[in-house]
């Protein structure tokens, strides 16, 4: 039997090619979808490692994006707005600036808007200015030596009665139970699927408490660098591993995108 020469680089090449076509708006029909799919089918029995299989899945995903692009391409070509890009480029090169500008002006309907400060706002601004202390005085108040700059830790927050240890323990216990119930049928859960909640504040709280669950050693994170995904998995028995810190940034935009994806 003839041995098929397989290499992971082929998969990476397919993914890269598809992503470039997608990114740069190149004609998606330039990609020989059938040939690539046949190649993937031929290679599939040779993949043994998880990373190889994941790369194979990514290649399939990239090829399916190309098929979607091909469908969009056909729709666009059949629309009344479609004109061959090469023809347009040629026209732009041939026409002088005045002719291009004339065509533009005949299709241009500029937005009309008024940008004005009202007397009421002006009065508010004057009042604000009159009440504003000079910068030197404000700085003296803000950074006076009596208020040294420092950081708060959990103990400080408990001492200030901003949070109670009992409440926090309760919340942590509840979240841990939720995590355990979600991991009953699966080994792992996507980090963002777990922490994302209905409100941004709740999401921040879940992310914060989750970090304590991880630090306490009830669960751990699995990182898939290929797909750039983070999973949470429970620790069933103690393992000897090197502890490390993983900063996970979360902001409002990030949360909004997650919510949209979730819905």
């Amino acid at each position: 039997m003839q041995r098929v020469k397989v290499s992971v680089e082929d998969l990476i090449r397919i993914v890269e090619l598809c992503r470039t076509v997608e990114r740069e708006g190149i004609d998606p029909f330039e990609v020989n979808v059938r040939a690539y799919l046949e190649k993937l089918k031929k290679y599939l029995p040779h993949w043994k490692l998880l990373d190889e299989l994941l790369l194979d899945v990514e290649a399939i995903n990239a090829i399916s994006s190309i098929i979607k692009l091909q469908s969009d391409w056909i729709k666009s070509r059949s629309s009344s707005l479609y004109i061959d890009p090469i023809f347009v480029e040629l026209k732009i090169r041939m026409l002088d600036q005045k002719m291009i500008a004339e065509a533009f002006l005949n299709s241009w309907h500029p937005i009309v808007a008024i940008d004005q400060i009202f007397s009421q706002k002006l009065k508010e601004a004057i009042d604000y200015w009159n009440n504003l202390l000079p910068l030197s005085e404000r700085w003296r108040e803000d950074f006076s030596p009596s208020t040294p700059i420092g950081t708060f830790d959990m103990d400080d927050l408990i001492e200030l009665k901003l949070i109670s240890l009992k409440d926090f323990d309760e919340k942590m216990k509840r979240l841990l139970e939720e995590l355990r119930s979600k991991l009953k049928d699966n080994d792992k859960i996507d980090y963002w699927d777990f922490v994302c909640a209905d409100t941004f504040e709740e999401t921040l709280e879940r992310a914060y408490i989750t970090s304590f669950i991880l630090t306490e050693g009830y669960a751990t994170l699995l990182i898939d660098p290929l797909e750039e995904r983070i999973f949470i998995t429970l620790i069933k028995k103690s393992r000897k591993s090197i502890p490390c810190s993983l900063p996970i940034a979360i902001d409002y935009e990030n949360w909004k995108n997650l919510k949209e994806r979730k819905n």
Partner: protein
Amino acid sequence: MSEKEAETSIKLKRASQLLFFQRHKKLGLRGWELKKVLGKDFMSIIDLLNSELDKLNLQVKIVFEDFEAIDKPSEEQIDRARFFITIKNPLAVSDIISSGWRIDDIAALAAAIALIISRQGKAPKRDVEQILREKFPKWRVDMNLDRFIKNGYLSKDDKDILYIGWRTRAEIDQKMLMDLLLAK
């Protein structure tokens, strides 16, 4: 004047104030914002405003979220659409020049938009630069593209791909632009 007429007149003035006065960097208002102020039947006020603006060569332009012209939009599509006031009939070259636009800047904008439209709404920045540099010096191309992006005529992602911007959707009749360019 009947009570209803008086109410309509107040709403008409309110609608023109809302649409004329700039609130954010991105102009115009969403349908739901107008609905909140003018009431559920705000589209009838917009129609009325449109007929008043027509006398001044102005119009209310509605840009739907998926950027397609819709004959019979649903309530949800109208809520999410953005409303602007635009000039109705095209301006004369002299009007544009006196408003601070140079003829070569307009040509550069037209060429960039036409190129992006022909490529299904997106094109690498370097391709647009390459074509513009055939007719304009590099510094002018760079300056113009930055200005077009800043003003919302074009938008750019982190991979340096240019797209049609929100202002182009609101202000430019894209089909007419392409027809006129190709007819020259």
